[in-house]
């Protein structure tokens, strides 16, 4: 019995240690952000690496999701004679949920893993230690620009994902199935609230950008400086980011859309 209590105590202390470590890392990162903002070209370069280079997978996925969503919604709505509302349903699905969430999951897989591996390998190759010994703070020079770039990139990627998804839905619904184009756009326009639907979707994607980038940087920076350490860090980035995004999505949805 006493052994079991001791085990629970050890586990609790370990969890608290990990949480404290995350908090310290986060505060260090925040403190490093002003220095990164004073050199915007570092942030812009990372927006290119994180954002621009993720465009292909984001746009292709958005288009595919738009296609499928239009088909599925059409099959469901046509039964009730409400196929004209397809544009609205697709738009709300994408801007409120699928855009931010799927973009974040794709971002974690594409950019998050890349960030973790890059930082982990820089650590393994003593590049971060070398920077530190050159009196250059790696948190300001390496981590903070990536962190800011992730927060800026994610909502832009999510907007692009939703936009291309809506276009994909238009292609399937209007051009292939024959839903009336006027109804498709006008019902969408009248049913979507810019602040409530699009605005909240953007807020969600900013939060997801924050979560995914923070986890990717933390896992890379704290990875054991070995090939196995970097591999584990990369895997943890995808798993923790994905779970974090999905759980936070529920919380945010409950907060944002709790009233009609």
């Amino acid at each position, binding site marked *: 019995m006493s052994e079991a209590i001791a085990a629970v105590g050890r586990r609790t202390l370990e969890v608290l240690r990990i949480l404290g470590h995350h908090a310290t890392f986060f505060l260090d990162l925040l403190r490093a952000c002003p220095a990164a903002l004073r050199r915007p070209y570092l942030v812009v370069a990372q927006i290119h690496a994180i954002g621009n280079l993720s465009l292909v997978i984001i746009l292709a996925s958005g288009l595919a999701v738009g296609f499928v969503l239009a088909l599925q919604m059409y099959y469901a709505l046509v039964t009730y004679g409400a196929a004209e509302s397809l544009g609205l349903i697709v738009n709300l699905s994408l801007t409120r949920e699928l855009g931010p969430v799927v973009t974040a999951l794709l971002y974690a897989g594409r950019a998050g893993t890349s960030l973790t591996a890059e930082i982990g390998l820089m650590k393994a190759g003593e590049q971060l230690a070398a920077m*530190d*010994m*050159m*009196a250059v703070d790696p948190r300001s020079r390496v981590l903070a620009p990536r962190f800011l770039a992730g927060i800026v990139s994610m909502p832009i990627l999510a907007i692009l994902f939703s936009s291309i998804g809506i276009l994909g839905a238009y292609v399937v619904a209007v051009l292939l199935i024959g839903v009336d184009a006027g109804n498709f756009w006008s019902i969408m326009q009248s049913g979507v609230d810019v602040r409530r639907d699009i605005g909240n979707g953007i807020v969600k994607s900013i939060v997801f950008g924050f979560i995914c980038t923070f986890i990717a940087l933390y896992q890379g920076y704290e990875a054991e400086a070995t090939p196995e350490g970097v591999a584990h860090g990369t895997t943890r980035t995808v798993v923790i980011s994905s779970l974090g995004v999905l759980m936070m999505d529920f919380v945010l949805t409950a907060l944002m859309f709790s009233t009609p």
Partner: protein
Amino acid sequence: MADLPATATVSSSSDPLVEIDHVVFGYDARRTILNDVSLTFGRGKVTAILGGSGCGKTTLLRLIGGVYPTNSGSVRVFGDVVDAHDDEQLFALRRRLGMLFQFGALFTDLSVFDNVAFPLREHTDLDEAMIRDIVLMKLNAVGLRGAAGLRIADLSGGMARRVALARAIALDPELLMYDEPFAGLDPISMSIAANLIRTLNDTTGATSILVSHDVDECFSICDYAYLMSSAGIVVAHGTPKQLAASEDPEVRQFIRGEPDGPVRFHYPARPLAEDFGVNA
């Protein structure tokens, strides 16, 4: 400790730039890496720290750079205790240091030129034309001016070490620290590296601390040397000539590369008969 330094200590510490005084250090409570070590590094000298793998040589360099605080004892660099520094003071100290890492630690996303330019761009307001001239001068000093445009992936191990050396001297540091500068180099590259270290030390007036286990190369260029054991203590120190003439068994074993002696060949283990199930 071998009783060598009666005269040699004077040559190393008459005007010390770095003083390590009774330092004890371990990365965690389970194992002590440095066990009450005291060393001094004379201004303008090339001082070598010799010893086998894992004896705490690199750790000493990190303590000098203020990467870790000591458990007890003090590290004084340029007359100030490093542990007493806050982050800002620590970075001010490091701007006066140059360190060559074991495998170069070059930034693989930057070219050779940009690697050497990195500390200049970070710490000075020089315009690009001036930075270009300085970078080419530093690369010329290590014989790689023609390689300025190469990617890091295109360099051999010896070239990478020389580029890292050019980067380490970019800001003309007062103290240069070399972590295993000869490891993994072919004889020609090793000789080039050794000559560069000595030449750079003499021409720039810097102080150099050299961590290595290559006895011959170190002795050919250093003014003074410390020998450390795996117990994290200094077992001997003196000029290369004094250490080479030492009759101390541990010093002799290390310098002559004898496989067995005070430093055992076998890692501590159970009796052989027990492991192989043979009854005596």
